[in-house]
């Protein structure tokens, strides 16, 4: 509040009642609306956490209690102790970390080449990357599924991709189609283009080779961009639902997201355990975000693309 007083301080001697109080009232209304919106946004999360601590009986009570009568940690134990949960966690981690690592490596390499190197076909390749930004990935799942199924020499396939199951139900199949994205390449290219060229020139004069320059000089400078790319890739794979759903038919290959869906739609679904699981799945993303918050918001702002 004190800054308001200061802002109106270089006062022309006589300030009218309206001039004096109107900005304050505006501010109060603004704050009121913001607090209301923030509460509305956060309420589903609060319900999730509150339900996750309820007893079975309290879960079905109507009208529901906002604050649970007691904290039932057993729901979390039940969620974690599900027969497939451990396996699903491992699957989700391998998928998310694999996709993140490959995106960081491949998009950085490609982005650097497109930003800084001269070669034939450069404009064409860049135009292709930009064009692919517009292809709706969700609508391409059918052919991607067929391609993954028909990768030659995998899963009992012959060299024409016939006969076996290809990369279906494998980690490679899960990671490969997400291992580099047009958005990642585009973002890294934009970032590398902004680094002053002098850094490279002086290193080249000192006799450094292309890869050394990339690895020792450019990549350390690109740490913020890499952080954004890493968080976004992790988040997108960790939260992915449709691709693991289609690719995996075996129970051992399901991810946590599929597990949560199965838990919820099961015959004896318990809302409190489902909410405990939902809380556990949401936590890693929020933790990753809180650590890289500044980078992610800045990156989302400068690249203007959904996080």
């Amino acid at each position, binding site marked *: 509040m004190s*800054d308001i007083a200061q802002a109106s301080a270089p006062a022309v001697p006589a300030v009218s009642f309206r001039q004096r109080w109107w900005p304050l009232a505006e501010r109060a209304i603004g704050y009121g*609306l*913001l607090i209301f919106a923030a509460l*509305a*946004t956060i*309420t*589903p*999360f609060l319900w*999730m956490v509150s339900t996750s601590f309820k007893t079975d009986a309290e879960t079905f009570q109507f*009208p*529901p209690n*906002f604050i649970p009568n007691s904290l039932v940690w057993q729901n979390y134990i039940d969620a974690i102790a599900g027969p497939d949960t451990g396996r699903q966690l491992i699957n989700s981690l391998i998928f998310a970390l694999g996709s993140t690592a490959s995106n960081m*490596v*491949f998009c950085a*390499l*490609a982005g*650097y080449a*497109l930003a800084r*190197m*001269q070669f*034939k076909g450069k404009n064409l*390749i860049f135009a292709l990357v930009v064009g*692919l930004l*517009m*292809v*709706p*990935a*969700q*609508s391409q*799942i*059918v*052919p991607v599924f067929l*391609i993954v199924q028909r990768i030659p020499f995998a899963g009992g396939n012959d060299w024409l991709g016939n006969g076996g199951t290809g990369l279906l139900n494998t980690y490679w199949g899960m990671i*490969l*189609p*997400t291992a*580099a994205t*047009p958005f990642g*390449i585009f973002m890294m290219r934009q970032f590398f283009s902004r680094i002053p060229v002098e850094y490279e020139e002086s290193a080249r004069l000192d006799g450094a080779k*292309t890869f050394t320059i990339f690895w020792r000089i450019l990549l350390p400078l690109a740490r913020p961009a890499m952080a954004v790319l890493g968080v976004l890739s992790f*988040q997108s794979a*960790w*939260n992915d639902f*449709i691709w693991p*759903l289609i690719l995996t038919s075996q129970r051992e290959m399901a991810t946590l*997201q599929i597990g*949560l869906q199965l838990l*919820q739609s099961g015959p004896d679904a318990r*809302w409190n355990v489902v909410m405990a699981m*939902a809380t556990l799945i*949401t936590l890693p*993303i*929020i933790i990753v*975000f809180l650590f890289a918050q500044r980078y992610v*918001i800045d990156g*989302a*702002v400068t690249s*203007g*693309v959904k*996080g």
Partner: protein
Amino acid sequence: MALQSSTAPARRPQSFTQNWSAYAFLTPALIILFLSLLLPAAATVVMSLTDISFLRPTSFVWFDNYIKLVSDSRFRQAVGNTAYYTVGVTLPTMALGLLAAVALNGKLRGRIVFRTIFYLPVLTSLIAAAVVWMYVYEPYSGPINGTLAQLGLPPQPWLQSPNLAMTSLIVMAIWRDFGTAMIIYLAGLQDIPKDIYEAARLDGAKTKDIFFRITVPMLSNVTFYLMIILIVQTFQVFGAIYVMTNGGPLGSTETIVFQMYQTAFGYTEFGYAAAMSTVLFLAILLFSLIGTKLMRRGES
């Protein structure tokens, strides 16, 4: 890949090295883009001209799938549902995102906390969000009907009602997306020169006038950009519907991608599903091109 096979006539040895290492840097990413986007996009178009399925040998049926789509009343319903969902999500999301961005652009106390809260739903896994909202909409033990009961109002069958199900999904989508809109509008606001505002204030402009005469017009590019992102995204809605309503009740929440998924993986009619996906792709492309055009006009 064909681009690289033409060996560059190396004028200087160094340019040859540059070429060679650039291709080495690019190859892994290009192979992945080729397999995950370029080849599938081309394959979709080709497949849409066939009757490919696991059930019979494939033959070309040319435009039969598209002719079938036009007269398919289920598909028409899905197109209508998708359009309703897209408009219902996009417009309120943009309006709320703009308001939040304008409110949080200044030196307001606690703005970081507000921004984080508004951005939180964007980060949440779609499935976790869907499951939580299913509970929120639960007719017998859910908090919304609980609140209605305490206010003495009759409970509603949110996701179970053909009239309310799509609207319920839209409300959840707005909750999830408006953080994205806010972030993009915040970026836009930072690009508006501060002296315009100062000049307007010196001239005695009111807050309302500043908002409608300066802020909104100056953000028109950002608005178009955001609109395209949201349209492309909402056109492709799938996960929430799969988990929350499974297209029901009475097909009232069946969208194009949902029907495509069912046609392909439920009935293994890949050719027909590919035709749906091509129609969707063309619609998205059309919107993107219109958006780009409008944006260009806004600039000049």
